[in-house]
């Protein structure tokens, strides 16, 4: 017997969680002497009030969809992959190498090859922790965290010593050639007669991210591999009884997870920066954890949560730009959202469940 209807589980509870997080954030803003209502208005208008704002919100959301899906798919196999950040950094390296050293006739070919490059590099970075977990039992949480640091150092070395343009003091690669530049939403919508901000970085990668949501859904809920991943994640012992190889599932789930994280780089590196820079991932790997948590590890939930965090990111930077609210406070707001939607989920769930049970009882009796 379910304790409450499904809509309450997937919609009402996240909504209440968000509400509490926003109310608390409002109190914090009040405490530093700013007007929370005004701040919220500014966030909304900054993130959603113009096609420029939307452009950034969707650009950030694209990153978060990739990393959120990455965390979700690993989580379905009971692997807590915290290494999305590092996998996305190394994925960026893969994308950069492809774009810099292979001559492409057209951006579409470049995109496909860059997707493969990013995915392969990201997956390769996840393979080592996966192998250590599957064969040696080294906990993937620990190893993936450590691999984030190693990834940052590798990227640093590559940018300073290998990819840096001669004579430049900037630890960044050279600009990618013109034929690898991805069309932005402005470029895509213009022929349709829809005007969209030219300056916003959102690009064709957004559609790749949406396709990835559908593919991950089909993989997890309609394919045999997904069946095995979900079974293993829920009960490793039962899976062994059913002839599912734990080694195989751990490796595949982590490869898919790392691959998705790495693929994120077609958005930030290839689509936006058009060159490889240090810290291009900007924490998106970690936000992916919150996105997956809030999205209940479901591709559709991940999509919605990614949009929310895209909004928080863009709205938050507007806030720090135009008010005395410091950038750090935006991080506080994001942290509160993560805290209430993820960690303190049961705080709201318990009372709501009781309300539904009492209601059901009164109707029955």
């Amino acid at each position: 017997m379910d304790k409450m209807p499904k809509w309450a589980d997937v919609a009402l509870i996240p909504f209440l969680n968000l509400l509490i997080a926003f109310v608390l954030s409002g109190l914090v803003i009040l405490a530093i002497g700013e007007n929370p209502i005004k701040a919220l208005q500014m966030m909304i208008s900054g993130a959603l009030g113009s096609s420029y704002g939307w452009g950034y919100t969707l650009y950030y959301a694209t990153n978060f969809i990739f990393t959120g899906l990455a965390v979700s798919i690993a989580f379905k196999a009971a692997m807590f992959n915290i290494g999305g950040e590092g996998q996305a950094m190394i994925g960026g390296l893969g994308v950069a190498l492809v774009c810099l050293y292979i001559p492409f006739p057209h951006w579409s070919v470049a995109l496909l090859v860059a997707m493969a490059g990013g995915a392969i590099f990201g997956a390769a970075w996840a393979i080592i922790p996966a192998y250590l977990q599957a064969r040696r039992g080294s906990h993937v949480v620990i190893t993936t965290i450590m691999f984030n640091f190693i990834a940052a150092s590798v990227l640093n070395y590559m940018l300073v010593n290998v990819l840096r343009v001669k004579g430049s003091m900037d630890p960044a690669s050279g600009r990618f050639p013109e034929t690898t530049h991805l069309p932005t939403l402005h470029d895509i919508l213009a022929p349709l007669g829809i005007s969209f901000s030219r300056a916003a970085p959102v690009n064709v990668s957004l559609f790749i991210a949406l396709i990835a949501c559908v593919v991950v859904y089909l993989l997890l809920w309609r394919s045999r591999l997904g069946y095995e991943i979900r079974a293993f994640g829920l009960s490793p012992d039962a899976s062994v009884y059913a002839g599912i190889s734990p080694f195989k599932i751990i490796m595949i789930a982590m490869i898919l997870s790392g691959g998705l994280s790495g693929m994120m780089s077609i958005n930030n590196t290839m689509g936006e920066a058009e060159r490889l820079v240090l810290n291009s991932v900007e924490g998106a790997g970690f936000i992916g954890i919150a996105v997956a948590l809030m999205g209940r590890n479901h591709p559709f939930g991940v999509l919605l949560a990614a949009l929310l965090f895209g909004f928080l990111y863009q709205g938050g930077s507007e806030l720090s730009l135009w008010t005395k609210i410091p950038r750090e406070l935006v991080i506080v707001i994001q942290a509160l959202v993560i805290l209430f939607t993820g960690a303190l989920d049961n705080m709201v769930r318990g009372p709501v469940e009781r309300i539904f049970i009492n209601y059901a009882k009164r109707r029955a009796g």
Partner: protein
Amino acid sequence: MTDAPKVGQQETVAPAIELRGISKAFGPVQANKDISISVQPGTIHGIIGENGAGKSTLMSILYGFYKADEGQIFIHGNETQIPDSQAAIAAGIGMVFQHFKLVENFSVLENVILGVEDGPMLRPSLSKARKSLKSLAEEYELHVDPDALIEDLGVGVLQRVEILKALYREADILILDEPTGVLTPAEADHLFRILNGLRDQGKTIILITHKLREIMEITDTVSVMRRGEMTATVKTKDTNPEHLAELMVGRKVLLRVDKVPAKPGEKILEIEDLRMVDDHGVERLKGISLNVQAGEILGIAGVSGNGQSQLLEVLGGYAKATGDIRINGQHLDLSGSRSDARSRRARGIAHVPEDRQEHGLIMEFPAWQNMVFGYHHAPEYQKNKLLMDNAKMLEVAQDKMDRFDVRPPNPHLAAKSFSGGNQQKIVVAREIERHPDLLLVGQPTRGVDIGAIEFIHRQIIDLRDQGKAVLLVSVELEEILSLSDRIAVMFDGHIMGERLPDQTDERELGLMMAGVTGKGDVA
């Protein structure tokens, strides 16, 4: 009044425990419905019922784990509130749980005083407890070495420690929850002697069990529960097992399994000198040799933990071993890349595992996804190269659930929402319907209600009659005796010997299960 005068006298004494109109609901589920019961002091009162009938809930209310929604509790005639287990202990109630609650690396004495130490220093409490244990041991035949560590003791002794704990807390009402589940027949007899002694000293005992034999053997009065309600309370001497089973299930039940004599064919499974070492480096199988023929059921009897589980794990393909196993004359890979469960299934071995919740099912998956678990590679469940055929799987699951009478017959319900018996029916339906050459069955009816037991036994015998081989592992001797065509007894990783069910009895098997070699056997 036709009762003997002694009973008439007792009626005037306030009952040790009286429950009036106890009700308890968990959400929309009514676990106990208006239950009234009165237990006379100095008697053994049995409470029997199927799994999920509400026995454990009722006892948890009495022991202060749950609060009843309605109703009153009277202890020796006084209305008593029991908000927590401390209050229960203060009211003189002691509980011996099915799963012992002892600290493994403490001594018996330390466990006994745990929670009732007299002061900040342990020494006075320990010496007081030592004296008290000594007198309890003499009074009730409860002999336990007070300085032994819990981890070194066997289950029979651990149970005595639990009883001592309750008595040390001056309990005069003792509740035992399925106490014989882990005991050999000899240990169970010992327990019953202890319980009889306690009753003779005036203690009141409530025995919760699903075993009719125990009820008949030891209780004075028995109450039957069904679906949260108390359906009857009768004097044990006025009833019989068939009648009790009928009261429990609500319809007539066949307690004996009807079967025609086996017609064994050629050897399907041959095992020679099978050895297996577990993850801790302990040798669990020490040279097992046996065979199972087509059209027969080989029962493996033994106290749990003597290697039966490991034997099933090796055969089922999730533990590595050395030695030789042949299926239809073909060698099985015991440690290489084809020693996994999927390869075993491909060789015609189906497996109803001992623990359906840990191994046999994914509890969060809906029934239809569990119906293909382990066989999800089968071509009929694939739509194309990439996707599975969900519609087909649903259809197959619905069909099997209807034919195996799984209730409720809703394939969308998660496995955890079904009762133990219906979960087991899902597993049995899945495994039997693949028409295996060899069926491995572990504890087929553990935690399964009587109605479903009958059905599951029928399915296993039908499979045998179709000429398939069945290897049955069970700790229930009655089950082994009634189902098997041949019985092998396991003790400490060895086969102690084989017997035919009509040429042996529980006593002889019990001795073999305890490691005593039977006549004419080589150890």
